[in-house]
């Protein structure tokens, strides 16, 4: 097991290098110049010299391979540098202050999705083509097909403008500091309901369909037949024997959604004005803030690799047929 993990980690290093190189190339090849955004791009006040000076300060006057090498050297010391955005703050700090909220939203969202998607998938598989199956299929695909921004605006219009039950956007009331302990928590929670609702509705389809599909395959297996034949209750057959096996692909997909946890949705964050990583990434790309974009790329590449590794390892835990390393011999 240990050697297996070690080998995987070693293989990941050149892979990561390749990923960063391509990311670096892509963002630098995109037309546009971070310097333009400092000096107010077309502002009559900004002079050509000021722009030249900034380019030099950022090392943008050097050839691309040199820039990449310098970036790698700094990366080796886990230094992602300072943002090219006019605030000029350390990239890690910028990411750090936005990470908690994005992570929290995504974890809650993922938990709710699983909570609903697994039972929906199981039930619609065991009652294939029933009314329940058809109704949930329509429901989850509606969620999948509804544009986030449109659905979000409609919900705000209904719950915030007309009914006045929930706040329209943001994370906290402007008088949050002056609220009592419990009111603060309720206030924060009430700000999360709409964004999480929108995200969950849109995300139900994927997991519930995977679950349904995987369950359909499992219930046709011989061992399910034999479980039924030996007189086990249907509950036990599905809940114990079938579900455990049907969960295997879900575990793989869960591992792969690890980088998604820090991804954050640009659309939902923008509409609900939640200062998360999605917005940061989007703004950084538009402003050609190379250090921030590359840091986000790198972090999500690392998380993807870790996610794949974890899901492989988890498979060994849940599936006795899979084993690593010496146990095989």
């Amino acid at each position, binding site marked *: 097991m240990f050697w297996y993990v070690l080998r995987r980690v070693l293989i990941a290093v050149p892979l990561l290098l390749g990923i960063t190189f391509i990311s670096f190339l892509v963002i630098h090849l995109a037309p546009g110049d971070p310097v333009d955004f400092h000096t107010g791009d077309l502002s009559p006040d900004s002079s050509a010299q000021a722009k030249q000076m900034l380019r030099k300060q950022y090392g943008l006057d050097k050839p691309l391979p040199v820039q990449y090498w310098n970036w790698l050297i700094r990366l080796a010391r886990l230094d992602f540098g300072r943002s090219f955005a006019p605030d000029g703050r350390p990239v890690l700090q910028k990411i750090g202050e936005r990470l908690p909220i994005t992570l929290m939203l995504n974890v809650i969202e993922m938990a709710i999705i699983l909570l609903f998607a697994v039972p929906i998938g199981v039930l619609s598989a065991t009652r294939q083509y029933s009314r329940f199956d058809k109704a949930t299929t329509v429901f989850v695909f509606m969620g999948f097909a509804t544009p986030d921004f449109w659905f979000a605006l409609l919900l705000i219009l209904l719950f915030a403008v007309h009914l006045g039950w929930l706040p329209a956007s943001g994370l906290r009331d402007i008088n949050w500091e002056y609220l009592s302990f419990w009111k603060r928590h309720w206030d924060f929670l009430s700000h999360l309901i709409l964004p999480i609702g929108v995200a969950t509705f849109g995300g139900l389809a994927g997991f519930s369909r995977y679950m349904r599909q995987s369950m359909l395959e499992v219930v046709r297996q011989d061992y399910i037949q034999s479980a039924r034949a030996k007189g086990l209750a249907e509950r036990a057959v599905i809940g114990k024997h079938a579900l455990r096996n049907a969960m295997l692909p879900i575990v793989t997909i869960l591992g792969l959604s690890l980088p998604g946890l820090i991804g954050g949705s640009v659309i939902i964050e923008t509409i609900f004005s939640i200062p998360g990583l999605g*917005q940061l990434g989007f703004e950084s790309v538009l402003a050609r803030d190379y250090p921030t974009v590359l840091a986000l790329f790198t972090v999500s590449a690392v998380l993807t690799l870790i996610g794949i590794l974890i899901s492989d390892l988890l498979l060994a835990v849940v599936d006795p047929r899979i084993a690593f390393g010496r146990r095989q011999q």
Partner: protein
Amino acid sequence: MIVLRAAVLVVLALAAAACTSEVGSGTGDDGAARKTARPVYGDTLIEALLGDIQGLIPNITSDSASHTIGDLIYSGLVKRDGSLRLVGDLAESWTVSRDCRNMTFQLKKNAKWHDGRPFTADDVVFTYQAMVNPKTPTAYKEDFKAVESIEAVDAHTVRVRYARPYAKALQSWSTTMLPRHLLESYVTEGRLREAPQNRESPVGTGPYRFKEWRTGEKVVLTANRDYYDTGPYLSRLVYRIIPSQATIFLELKAKGIDSSSTLTALQYKRQTDYPAFRRAYQKFRYPSSAYTYFGFNLKDPRFADKRVRQAFAYAISKQELIEGVRLGLGREATGPYKPGTWVYNPNVKRYPHDLERARQLLAEAGWREKNGDGLLVKDGKPFTFTLMTNQGNDERKKIAELIQASLRELGVGVDIRILEWASFIKEYIKKRRFEAIVLGWGIGLDPDQYEIWHSSKTGPDDLNHISYANPEVDEMLERGRSSCFEDERKKYYDRLQEILAEDQPIVFLYFPDALPVVATRVYGVVESPNGIGFNFTEWFVPRSLQRYTAG
């Protein structure tokens, strides 16, 4: 199909809800009470910013959000009043020598930094040094490079000398003043951007003190009780960062914010025109300091011919454009200056919608015959070009489409291309790889537009993208910027406007109206040629209408 229909039903249900219920009652008031009410302290004003601020030292930022906040925390020596005249801010008074080269400021003696230290002439000298320091990452150096020498005569007198007359000299001292005792070391080391004053503890002389900045969420300011001028009456300001215009609009309707200036023409005119909204908000409307234009690459031989440009100006109906794109909420532009300001010259050549005249001008320029597609042909080549504009601006896209339709009537084919902003500027504008564009210019409060029209300003990072060159224009620009007397300058700029109107290097389309709304409970908001923000420190909410007590 079922999915689709269900979705449609949801929309209809919500739309119906939108028509029937309107929450909120607004505040009852009458005009007379508004005028006579005595200002009182208190309440919180919540505003929305579309983007986060970049820092808390406005001298080194160039986005409008940072300046909105920065101008409340800091102040300059002079400022513009409602009629756009320069009046004293930190300066009590000033004198200008007859040759325009010497200026002496008397500073207010009661002005203090937020940390309690007195504001002195030494801080003015320091601000100058910070601005011209090559390591200071500011976009506003040019104004200060014109200074030959500066000296603090005593604690409250500053003398500035210019190498040659510089028209923007006085205005340039509206630059926000920085505290020497806190920032000197950062400026010398070239680390001003990293100073804590740029991030968490700015110290200025302005009407508001900094309280809190949560990245991407909000900026909070509180009233500075030691302010050297009247007010400020509003106790607390909360600037919420809401990156979506649609959300800002919904927040306004839900009364989550008190003021916004980002309403679209459609929202302003139609979607806010119901009683509850009218009770809750005061609407304002005045021309903004920016215009939209249809520009040409004058290096292209077809557009180098003045008659072609004039023909296009005749072919486009500006009124129709303003009606179609801005629902009438804009003013026709005849040149690069805002109608109603002192420098604006109304007596220039105008181009009323006249297709006959346009055809005639094109014919004079050699575009006579039409080919099978109905396009004008010269030397065997049909008259077609690509019109570019940037993505994300719906107005410009619509303008491009209207121009396309108008020119089609003349027999000119237009292809529209819409490009992402950064690549549009870098790859097409700066490299001059465009035939025609729809873009806009923001105009400053000073009429100097040397950077935009002067023939020397055609380098890749310069702003004369269209490669316009006219010796008389150059001369007017040079003379205009080297005089400090308004009536003399007006002569040069009047002539400049005449030439530009005749030449039509670009077709000046319109000045869109700024469309701010402010909660009705806020008194003292006055519309002026300078917008509504100029007397912000005098805004107040009568005690009975105050909504927030905290803070």
